[in-house]
Every structure is written in C-alpha cells, then in structure tokens.
C-alpha cells in the first residue's frame, strides 16, 4: 500500500482506490502514512513527557532547545538516507564533524589572524571559515567516495578507517586541548536568543511556506491534468492545503511564543537605547533559531535533489537494483561518489552548528554521531536492503530520538537510562516498520 510512496514520494503514479472506507479516504489524499505515523509517534512522546512533568515540558522554550539539539544530527541524517539507499554506509561522519569543528575553531582563533593575516575585524570571516569547512568536508567525502566507488573497497571498511584516522587528525590539529573563542557572527549559527531570526521574519517565512504549499498543490494538479494522470478529489486538495498551512502557522506561532530572556533584553535595550522598558518588560519573540532554519533549508534542498533531480532518481534506482541501474546506462560510480561528497558537505554544516553552540571545539565534538545519524535514518524508515528511504522521514527520526534524549534528561533520568530507552525505541521502530512492509506487500 505504501510501497510506491516508500521508493520515493513521486506523485502522479498512484491509482486512487475507489473504496469509501476511512482507509480509502486517507488514500485519496495520498498522505504518506509512514510519515504521518511518525509524526503521531513524536506527538505521543511529547505528550507523554508533558503529562509526566505536570505540563511543564511542552513549552516553546523547551521545544526550541529540543529542535536546536536535534538539528546537527538531522542535517547529516538527510545525507545518510541517500548513502544507505544506495546500499552503502558512512561511519566516518562523527570524526569528520570533529575535524571540521576543530578547523573552524583553529581558523578563527589562530590561522586567520596569525597565518592568513585576517584580523578579528576582517569582513565576513565567519563566511570564509564556513566555506573552507564545507570545502574540506567535500574533499574528505569525495576522497572516501572515490575509494568506495572507483577502487571498490566496501564503504563499511573505508569509512571505518575514516572514523579512526580522522579522529586522530583532530588530536594532531589541536594538540589535545580545547579551543574556544569563535567570532560572534559565527556563534549565531548555533542558535540562542540572538541566534534566531526574530518574530517578523518567522511570520514572513511561515507565510512564504503557506503560499508554497498552495502553489505546489495547484501546480501538481495542473501537471497531472496535462498528462492525463488521475488527480486527487478537490476536497482532498483543500484539506491538504488547509492542514499544511495551519501546521506551518502553528509552528511559527509556537516559536514566536519563545521570548528573549529578560536580562538579555534589558541589557541590549540599554546598550542600543531602545527607550524606557514597556510595562511587563520587553517581550521580544525569538522565532526560529538559525540552526532550525539551516535544517529546513537543507531538508528542502535534499528532498528536491532526491525526488526531483536525475541524481536522486539514480540513487534510488541503484539502491533498488544495482545491476539493472548499471545496465540501464547510469554512471553508478559517479553517483555513489557524489553521495559521499554530499555527506562531507552536510558534516561541515553540522560541525558549524556544533562548534557555534560550544563557542569552540573540543577533542570529542561529533563523537558517536555516526550512531545517532544512522539510528535517525533507520527510525525514519530507511531500509538497509537499499532503495527505500525518505529525507523528511530521517529528519523526523532525528527528532524522535532527540525528543527521547531531551525529555528523559528533562525528567532527570541519567544517561545510562537514556541509552536503554533509545536502544529499545530503535528496535521497536524498525520492528513496526518491517511488520508494516510485510503486511503491505
């Protein structure tokens, strides 16, 4: 039933069932049941913690913390989907995040001022650092991808080697000590009250999102008409539009209910001469933090690459049947190499978030990310058999795993307990998925 949606959420190929049962109605809306189920699971987890904490958990500020904590792993998980779909694995992501995070820290505290002659006042240092980090990520990812795709060493081995050796490089770069003191601009990538886009921009972003949903629905309908594909019933289109818009606006409103801490607001107000404090204190909404916006952008781009570009189709085709893909004339090696380059770039983005959050880098940044990332992708419905997996699913998977970790931490459960729960949930999630697939086929 959901197999087509699994392979890729390609529209226009679904024959709407004519049944009028609830299941039939849901099928007519073409909602991806797997994604919907995960959203539901996430909701249940949040609700459970909210009840357990006596209503203190489901607050804007807590949810923003949770989102920021999940963003690094979620960013990499979007790429891990493509790697696993094409029947590979990448174990080196944690080490790569570590080495790039250390590179950012060293660039800004040492190399830029002392070697490159870019003092603290040099314009756009944060962007230059970010660019160099992304370049480094692409290079290391490309090298690993080359060895895997063109020399034919199994990805498990190559990236296991990467996991060990790249982590060692972190030590040589830093000579073992933590580095701190990044540029204030760069720190904004890590979120926090000042590292957020603010109330107005959040509303604008929400409206743009809303508009995009409606336009996509209209455009999709027109395209299907043009090629004589079956279209959704009008009520389903309207329902999707309204629900989608409502969800986007609700999330924006929720993020905007998170306010600047009073102390900070008062300090900035005094510094920038905002005038007298209004009654009830400054009420400045933070809106979406930058790491969340980054994650949103990455998810959209990756989903577009995966479902709307030839590259993505090739990845899924190769994962579904490598031999057939090869015989069909797909340059499979080049495709595989590109998935690892993409991984390196995503690691650089995640490293920027992690180091900005820490305002520096320690030897252990990114350690065991590979496990969290693979767990997120798998909980999000990616199959190790290859060919199956969705990018929004992986992002949701990352949120499910992090909401457990954060919630248990919030409730005062110690890390051994958190690990026990995370492990069990991982197995249960994949177990359910496997059962579902078997029943579906």
């Amino acid at each position: 039933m959901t197999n087509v949606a699994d392979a890729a959420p390609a529209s226009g190929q679904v024959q709407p069932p004519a049944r009028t049962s609830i299941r039939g109605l849901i099928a007519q809306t073409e909602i991806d049941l797997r994604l919907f189920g995960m959203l539901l699971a996430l909701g249940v987890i949040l609700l459970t913690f909210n009840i357990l904490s006596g209503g203190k958990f489901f607050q804007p500020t807590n949810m923003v913390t949770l989102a920021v904590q999940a963003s690094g792993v979620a960013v990499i998980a979007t790429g891990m989907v493509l790697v696993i779909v094409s029947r590979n694995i990448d174990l080196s992501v944690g080490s790569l995040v570590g080495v790039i995070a250390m590179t950012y820290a060293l660039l800004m505290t040492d190399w830029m001022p002392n070697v490159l002659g870019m003092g603290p006042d040099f314009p756009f240092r944060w962007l230059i650092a970010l660019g160099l980090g992304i370049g480094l990520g692409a290079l290391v990812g490309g090298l690993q991808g080359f060895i895997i795709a063109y020399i034919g060493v199994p990805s498990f081995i190559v990236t296991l080697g990467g996991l060990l050796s790249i982590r060692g490089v972190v030590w040589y770069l830093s000579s073992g000590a933590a580095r701190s003191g990044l540029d204030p601009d760069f720190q904004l990538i890590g979120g926090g009250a000042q590292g957020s886009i603010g109330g107005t921009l959040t509303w604008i972003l929400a409206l743009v999102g809303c508009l995009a949903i409606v336009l996509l629905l209209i455009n999709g309908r027109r395209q299907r008409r043009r090629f004589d594909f079956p279209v959704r019933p009008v009520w389903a289109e309207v329902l999707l539009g309204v629900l989608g818009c409502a969800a986007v606006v609700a999330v924006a409103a929720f993020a905007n209910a998170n306010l600047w801490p009073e102390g900070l607001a008062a300090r900035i107000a005094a510094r920038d001469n905002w005038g007298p404090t209004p009654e009830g204190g400054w009420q400045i909404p933070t809106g979406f933090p930058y790491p969340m916006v980054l994650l949103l952008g990455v998810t959209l781009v990756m989903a577009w690459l995966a479902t709307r570009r030839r590259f993505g189709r090739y990845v899924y085709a190769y994962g579904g049947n490598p031999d057939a893909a090869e015989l069909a004339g797909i340059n499979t090696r080049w495709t595989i190499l590109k998935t690892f380059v993409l991984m390196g770039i995503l690691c650089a983005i995640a490293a920027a978030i992690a180091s900005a959050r820490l305002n520096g880098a320690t030897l252990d940044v990114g350690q065991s990310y590979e496990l969290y990332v693979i767990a997120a992708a798998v909980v999000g419905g990616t199959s190790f058999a290859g060919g199956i997996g969705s990018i929004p699913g992986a992002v949701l998977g990352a949120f499910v795993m992090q909401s457990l970790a954060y919630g248990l931490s919030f409730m005062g459960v110690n890390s051994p307990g958190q690990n026990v729960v995370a492990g069990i949930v991982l197995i249960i999630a994949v177990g359910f998925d496997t059962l579902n697939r078997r029943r579906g086929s």
Partner: protein
Amino acid sequence: MFSRKLIALVGAAAVMAAACSSGSTPSPSAAASGGGGEDCVVGVSWNNFQQPRWAATDEPGIKDTVEAAGGKYISADANLVNEQQLTDVDSLISQGAKVLILLAQDQNAILPAVQKAKDAGIPVIAYDRLIEDTSVLYLTFDNVAVGKAQAAALFEKVPTGNYVLIKGDPGDPNASTFLPQGWDDAGLKDKVASGDITILNGPDGTFTDAWKTEKAQSNMEAIIDKANADGNKIDAILAENDSTALGVVAALTAKNYGFPPLSGQDGDPANLNNVALGKQYVDVWKNSLELGKAAGQAALQLCAGTAIADLSITVDPSVQPPTGAAPTDFTTPGSNVVKAFILQPTPVTADTLNLPIDAGWYATKDDICKGVDPATGPAACK
C-alpha cells in the same frame, strides 16, 4: 607551528624548573641523593604520551630533576596498548633502568611487568595511576581532596541555594565515588539534609557519558529548561572536571542565563580562560610539574638504595601532603596496603590565576587572559 609551540612550552617549563631548583631551596634531599645520581638510569613508561599534559609538565618535572643530579632519563610510550607497555618495560630494563616509573594503561594488565622488575630487584613507582601491588610506591594527587576543594570553594561563595551537580562518566570511579566523596567531606550531604542546599537535578546529579563536552552541554540545557519551568533559580553548579564545565558554560551562554559560580578540575587552558572571564568560578588544579619532581626525587633516592618507607620528598608547599615528606600507608580498592605519596590539589580562582602562570603551567598567560580586558579583569591579566 604546533611543534614550535610545544618546544616553547617545554623550554618555559625547563626554565621554571631550573629557576626553582637553583632558587631559595636547593632541597636537601636532592643534594643528598645527588651523590648516587651519576649512574642512576630512570626508565619511564608512559601509557599515552599523546595527551599534552605529559609532555608539557610531567616529563620535564621528572627529567630535569633526574638530570640535575647527574642521572639518566629514558622513556617509552605505549600508545594506549597494554601489550606494548609490557614490551616497553622489558626494553627499559634491558637498557639498564635502575628505577621504573610506570604510568599504567591498566592497573592489572601491568602486573607481569611489575613482577619482572621485582625479580630484577628494580623498584617501581606507580605514577599518577594506581598499580595493585604492595611493592610499589604510589605517587598521585588526592582525588577526594579535589572534590573537597571544589565544593569548599563554592560553599564559601554560595552557602545556601539551589545547586546543580554535573558528574563525569558513570563508569569512572573518580566520577561516581572519589569526587562526590570529596563534596560530602566538604559538607554537601549535611547541607542538603539541613535544607541549606537543594539539588535541582535529583539526589545524584547528572552523569556525562565519557566526560563529553557536547553531552554535558545538552544535559545542562535540559536542566536549565526544567529549572525555568519549575520557577527555580540555579545558584551554583558543581561540575567534576573541565570538559564538563566547558559544556555547562556553553549551555549557560546559549540560554543567556548569566554565570552562576561553577567548579571544574584540570587547569585546561580554555577553562582557566573562563575563570579569567568570570564564566567559571573555580578550577581545581593539579600541578603535575610538582608530581614529576616528586617522582624524580623518589627515583634518585631509590637508586641510592633508600627503602620506600624512608624516602623524603620535598615539593612546593602548596601541594605538600599534610602527612609530611615521607610516604604513608594507602589502602587500595583491591585491599592492598601500598606506600603512597599523595599531593594536594590547588583551587584556582580569578584571584589566584597567577599560580599556574608563575608555575610554568602549559596554559600560558596568553591562553588564560585571551579576550580579558586588562582594566577590569583579574590581577593576573594586568
């Protein structure tokens, strides 16, 4: 660039050590052992020389003391591998070592090497890490005293209020037993019982897997969120070491919470910098330069045939054990009684930042005072 810096550090440490030994106290014990120093070969087996601390402070402490008395220093690095360390000890013995200083990778796996040394009549010093064998001299810092110094410093600053406890890896006895025992020695348990102190994150605090900074950060963020949701204010944070304290500072910064008094341990450059910036209140520092000197002195005296119980070790008064210059009995977790010389840690606050700088610690004044306004910063940064 890295090696240039390291050379500078080692050089600075060597100058300091030389200045110390030629200074006011030419230390009678060093002079006394100088006689037997000429043919004394001291073999040191490091378990992991990659950690910057050993090269920067411990090795110069040992090497300079031994060489100043005319002895010879030889060493090997086991790179975290137990088997390698056994081989290393063999080769140190065959190179003519008269005394062995062992930083054991594993306190039990090292035992065959200790047995070999015993058979050859070579005395063994267990350096910084315990070896479960009654024949060794155990040289270390007092980990319980580290916890006690952390808690005592915070209690003086914040006698009553809401505390958060951030502990290290749950599998490390330092994190789960020794440091908390020191906190209780300083009065944490009593203050909780009397209601002076409330622990916001459960009776046992929060453990941090593998002492990871990122983990400490996300844990602390959840603790801050919970405290805010409950309407509680965090007045002080007891963190067991510097890597976790760094994560706490990152969480406090992300939440714009301000910086309640916070403890740490290790004297890491980034953390001493935070002390100077007012983001961390106290960093309990183990001056391992002095630990190296103590090991050097002990090795020289053991070379000269002094029995372990009769050793007389002179270190800086700030780290001198309260029990005096002679080793004392120490009961190990394995119920062995060994002779031990246990140094005292030094709490460093903004007022005493000059201590590590003056001692030639590997965190230099530039590291410690980075970003500090000399006009308003601590005296050490002026």
